[in-house]
């Protein structure tokens, strides 16, 4: 589960027409082509009745995202989109931090157990993947609703509050944080921890100075695969949070649904993609700095 750039490429093994061919086909068909469609759509005109597009180049979609036109026809910067972006980033950031706080100790604790116990615990962590995320979110709706289990044991009704969104997102993404951190913690040489204690370090110092720096690649990987999907999260904010405050994921969904503006939806998706790419680049650069 290590997300490290492949530094040495041997064309004979990894190039097209080799054993990697299925990967290329999958990548092109399922990632490349849809991506191209989205990028192209974002530069086209809205379809006549809202659905689809008219094949004519225009920057209207981006103009709609960034500017608003008042009744007099004057254009001014539109801050509502930026607000939504900001809100989405804050949500994804908070969820990532909660997942880190819960995930790091959990992963380290699992890695310190006996091998047989480790296998059982990791299987338990992955159990939620067996059930569709939508079904699991509906289950949370029942738990958090008025008269639901949490309400019955004294908790306030959390459904359709941003608390419900946080709970749902943390629940959904926690395994993605635990697994890569566990993968690197599991490789930790136990004698290195013993050496740290032997040199007089307290448990806390061993954690901060030795363990966390040594599992940092797992932590970076965990941050990337939690933060990025959390940024575009749609299911939990709409079902659990009641869509009370607009997020970028819901906004994009609306453009293809109720608002019937595919080019604007595509433009928003392209912007989200750019942001994600920037974040990834930033973390990758940090990784390389650490590695050298």
């Amino acid at each position: 589960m290590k997300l490290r750039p492949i530094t040495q490429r041997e064309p004979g093994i990894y190039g097209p027409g080799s054993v990697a061919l299925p990967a290329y086909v999958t990548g092109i068909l399922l990632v490349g082509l849809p991506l191209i469609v989205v990028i192209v759509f974002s530069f086209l005109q809205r379809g006549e009745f809202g659905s689809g597009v008219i094949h004519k180049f225009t920057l209207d979609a981006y103009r709609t995202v960034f500017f608003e036109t008042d009744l007099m026809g004057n254009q001014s910067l539109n801050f509502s989109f930026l607000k939504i972006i900001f809100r989405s980033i804050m949500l994804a950031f908070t969820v990532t931090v909660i997942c880190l706080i819960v995930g790091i100790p959990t992963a380290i604790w699992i890695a310190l157990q006996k091998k047989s116990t480790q296998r059982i615990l990791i299987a338990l962590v992955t159990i939620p993947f067996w059930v569709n995320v939508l079904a699991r979110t509906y289950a949370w709706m029942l738990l958090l609703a008025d008269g639901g289990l949490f309400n019955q044991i004294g908790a306030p009704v959390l459904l359709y509050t941003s608390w419900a969104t946080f709970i749902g997102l943390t629940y959904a993404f926690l395994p993605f944080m635990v697994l890569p951190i566990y993968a690197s913690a599991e490789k930790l040489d136990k004698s290195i921890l013993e050496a740290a204690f032997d040199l007089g370090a307290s448990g806390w110092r061993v954690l901060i100075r030795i363990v966390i720096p040594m599992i940092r690649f797992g932590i970076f990987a965990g941050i990337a695969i939690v933060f990025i999907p959390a940024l575009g999260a749609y299911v939990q904010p709409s079902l659990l949070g009641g869509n009370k405050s607009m997020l970028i994921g819901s906004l994009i969904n609306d453009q293809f649904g109720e608002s019937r503006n595919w080019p604007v939806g595509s433009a928003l998706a392209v912007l989200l993609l750019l942001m994600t790419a920037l974040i990834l680049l930033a973390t990758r650069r940090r990784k390389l700095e650490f590695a050298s």
Partner: protein
Amino acid sequence: MEQEQGWADLQINALSKSFRDPKGAQVHALDGVSLSIPAGEFIVLLGPSGCGKTTLLRSIAGFEKIDSGHINLGGNRIDLLPPHKRPVNTVFQSYALFPHMSVAQNIAFGLENEKIDKNEVKARVGQVLELVKLTELADRKPSQMSGGQQQRAALARALAKKPKVLLLDEPLAALDLKLRKSMQFELKRIHRATGTTFVFVTHDQNEAMALGDRIAVFNQGKLQQVGTPFEIYTAPASEFVANFIGESTLLQGKISGQIFEGDGLRITNLNQDINANASAKLIVRPEAFTLMQGQTSCGKVEIKEVIFAGDSLEALLVTQSGHEVKVKTGASLLSQLNVGQSVELFVDVNQIGQIA
């Protein structure tokens, strides 16, 4: 360091530890081990794998919980303290250097855990780096160094803490022969320079001989014998020790009137310290036997195998009763010895040991 002598003696008292192996059987890793190590000594814990020597080392460090007995250091009981509170430090077999820190940072880590002034930390890092001759590599990461250099770094890191006892867990096992030899000299030099007690674990008898002021031989969780390398080699206390340290031939028979008879051999003029016994066991090192004239004769033997070892000949002989005898003899006899030939065997009676 002179004034520290005496109050940093390490006393190991009736230490026992057992655990269950994967099949559920009880294994005694340590079985009532008592050992007294005076301050400043270089003691080697020697034995085959699984004999308890590493368990003993880890018990002193605090990584193993002991079932019974206690460990005192300079009169203070330390076996109840957690590892990070014990005034001992370990050099691990795998070196266990922190991969994300430079050599200097690795060494400083241990000092930063104490409340030591920053300049003092820097000075002490410089001192130990000089001691192990790594000053130039202070800013290297462990991955950028050879095995021997990592070994020195691990040694420096442990010594920087000025431990009362330095524990070394087979630290040379991963090095090649040549490097191992030169590190043995380095360890002796560093031991002399620091005056610290060294407790060194190994399964390599030659290394034990080369390094130890004393050697403690372990087998199956029990301490077999403690003594200087000379004592252990020349007067092994048991058949196990005799076989584990160097090669030897065991002769079983009857001793009376300073004459041994048994296993097809007859040895006269035995030393006074060999006791009369109807079922005696004698230990003879290969170099105590010879095929050259001049020593006490033992009888006729047949040559089964001859190996030329450069400075000597190693021969496997069979007595008339079929008992095998190992001999190390002068290389000059090479041309005169043939397999199957019958020759006379001689022995130096001063080098014969007796075991109970």
